[in-house]
């Protein structure tokens, strides 16, 4: 693995759209070529090198390219967008759309991220050592196919609307979450180690939500079924199982109606 290091040296007047900061765009390029890649501030196109010091070297392929980014990136959007492989490590807070539509590889953010992280994610790993904003791992506006694969791990809290229209993959939140979790979900798994507020699984067709802490208010469309013991993938204990959303349409498999499932921890 070869490493390219970016260090932010100039802040943008507005926000920087840096969808070219991916192992895919960097692979096979020299440092000068990387500095020549486009970034945008509003309608103006700039060179990446105007905002970042670029050093190190890129691998021949995305898979063999690692990007380490230092400095204050709290006004930078779209890092790691659509990446297919390799690695990005960001030592800063980040603005919106980190790892949006990513397909492979790994992004580690040592800081907080704003909204729309992991939008429409298909594969790979997005690790956030901090808090995440709203719409984590959600579908892009108007798309009914949300996150379909990969894994998002947030050590802190997350905002509202996580996993909207999710069809697969996994989101693990270390802390608490805001309202609307897995709305319209048709698959996938969300694990909340802290507390949840309300509107979990609204209009949910299929998929699983695990909550280790409290739930302020259960949707009326979720009915308690039974207590179950679980021990898998770090999820261990006795859980109360709720099924729903009873108001929503559901598929049948082998004559059985398949519901969305909410598991709430009763005892570890």
């Amino acid at each position: 693995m070869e490493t390219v290091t970016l260090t932010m040296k100039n802040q943008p007047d507005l926000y920087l759209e840096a969808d070219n900061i991916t192992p895919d765009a960097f692979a096979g390029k020299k440092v000068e070529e990387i500095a020549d890649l486009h970034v945008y501030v509003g309608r103006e196109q700039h060179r990446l090198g105007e905002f970042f010091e670029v050093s190190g070297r890129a691998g021949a392929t995305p898979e063999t390219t690692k990007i380490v980014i230092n400095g204050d990136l709290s006004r930078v959007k779209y890092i790691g967008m659509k990446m297919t492989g390799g690695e990005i490590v960001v030592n800063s807070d980040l603005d919106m759309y980190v790892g949006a539509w990513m397909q492979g590889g790994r992004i580690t953010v040592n800081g907080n991220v704003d909204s729309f992280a992991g939008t429409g994610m298909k594969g790979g790993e997005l690790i956030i050592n901090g808090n995440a904003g709203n719409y984590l791992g959600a579908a892009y506006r108007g798309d009914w196919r949300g996150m379909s694969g990969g894994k998002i791990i947030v050590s802190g809290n997350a905002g509202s609307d996580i996993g909207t229209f999710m069809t697969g993959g996994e989101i693990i939140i270390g802390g608490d979450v805001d309202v609307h979790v897995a709305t319209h979900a048709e698959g996938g798994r969300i694990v909340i180690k802290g507390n949840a507020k309300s509107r979990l699984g609204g209009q949910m067709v299929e998929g699983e939500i695990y909550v280790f802490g409290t739930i302020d208010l259960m949707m009326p469309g979720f009915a308690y079924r039974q207590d179950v013991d679980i021990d898998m993938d770090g999820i261990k204990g006795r859980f109360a199982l709720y099924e729903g959303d009873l108001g929503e349409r559901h598929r049948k498999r082998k004559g059985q109606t398949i519901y969305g499932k909410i598991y709430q921890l009763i005892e570890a």
Partner: protein
Amino acid sequence: MSRTVTDVICPFCGTLCDDIEVVVSDDGRKLHEVYNACAIGAEKFLHSQAKDRITRPRMRQDDGSWKEITYDEAIDYTARILVNAKKPLMYGWSSTNCEAQAIGSEIGEVVGAVVDNTATVCHGTSLIAVQDIGIPSCTLGEVKNRADRILFWGCNPAHAHPRHMSRYSIFPRGFFTGKGHTARKVIVVDPRPTDTANVADIHLQVEQGRDYELFDAFRVAFKGEQLPDFVAGIPKEKIYEAAEMLKSGRFVIIFFGMGVTQSLGKNHNIDAAIAVTRDLNEYTKAAIMPMRGHYNVTGSGQVWGWLFGFPYAVDLSRGFARYNPGETTANDLLRRDEVDAVLVIASDPGAHFPFSSVRKIYELPSVAIDPHETPTTEVCKVHVPVAFVGVEVGGCAYRMDNVPIETRKVVEPPDGMMTDEEFLRRVLERIKELQGV
């Protein structure tokens, strides 16, 4: 002497009443009286006759006072702030005609602006939901002629759309609704006992911010599944009863307003409301319609819909249209310092945006295009007064049910005043000069 102009369109609310009569002077320069309109609609017409009306553009001086400038100077200022900005915001558009909106869209494209309309603080959330799950809707004519189950959710037409109930929803006798209100059942869902709730057969006094849960409960009830004893503060028996009342109708119409579009859940509430409508179509005919506020906010969404593919919050900065409420919406852009110049037209964010956003407008190069003196004109650097659309100039507007209606000119504007359309056209010309294209 005076004469009466009939079949005039009221340019105030989304009901867009088309039966107004206006008495004007023979020379067409004075408007004397307005008939058939409700109080707020009549006020809009009469406002054009105000003695202290501002008829020339003004620029704010360093000491805070206004200095009168020419339209040419205002055009130059507007063109320059848009050309010099990296990402200008062009906001408003809801109280002007589609012709002006179309030119504004072209300016937005040329300068790489974000264009947003008042839906952003109103029914934008409805538009998100429509994009997510579609919408079974209808026209107000169908409501008048067919609907026998009327559900008002989070809206109060008695005050916000005063003639809506008499012209379309509750009282009129239509083709299949010859008995008028006596054959209609009305349900109102509102946390407050409003004047609309007073005429309802059932008033569900939902707990504030629990609409999403109540919509879900309706869906559970339609399917005959079990509900908890209370949902959103309402006993389950009452929910089953209301659900039955809806199912038993021949034609159900659900009207909803800002009580659900801007309370907790926002687009999710509407998403669930549309799902309720869809479910009802398993049993009877049902449609749903947003109670749009400004008379042509719907038209603004139409114009951008056909030009850019999105109805509001369209970011054109990169040369193609992007749309993501939460990022490209006016308040988010202002709050996050994402824009560096502001043009406001045909709306009043100064009165309706949070103070933090209004302060950002105050700090940026800004121009307000508005016939009135408003809280917005107070914080902008330049105020461009224009003719009243629908009173002093005609043009196309879209009613809340997406029916286009041509508004009419009934009186002359004060001498030398420009219309929105003329002003924007000149700004576009000036921008092209400055850009050298």
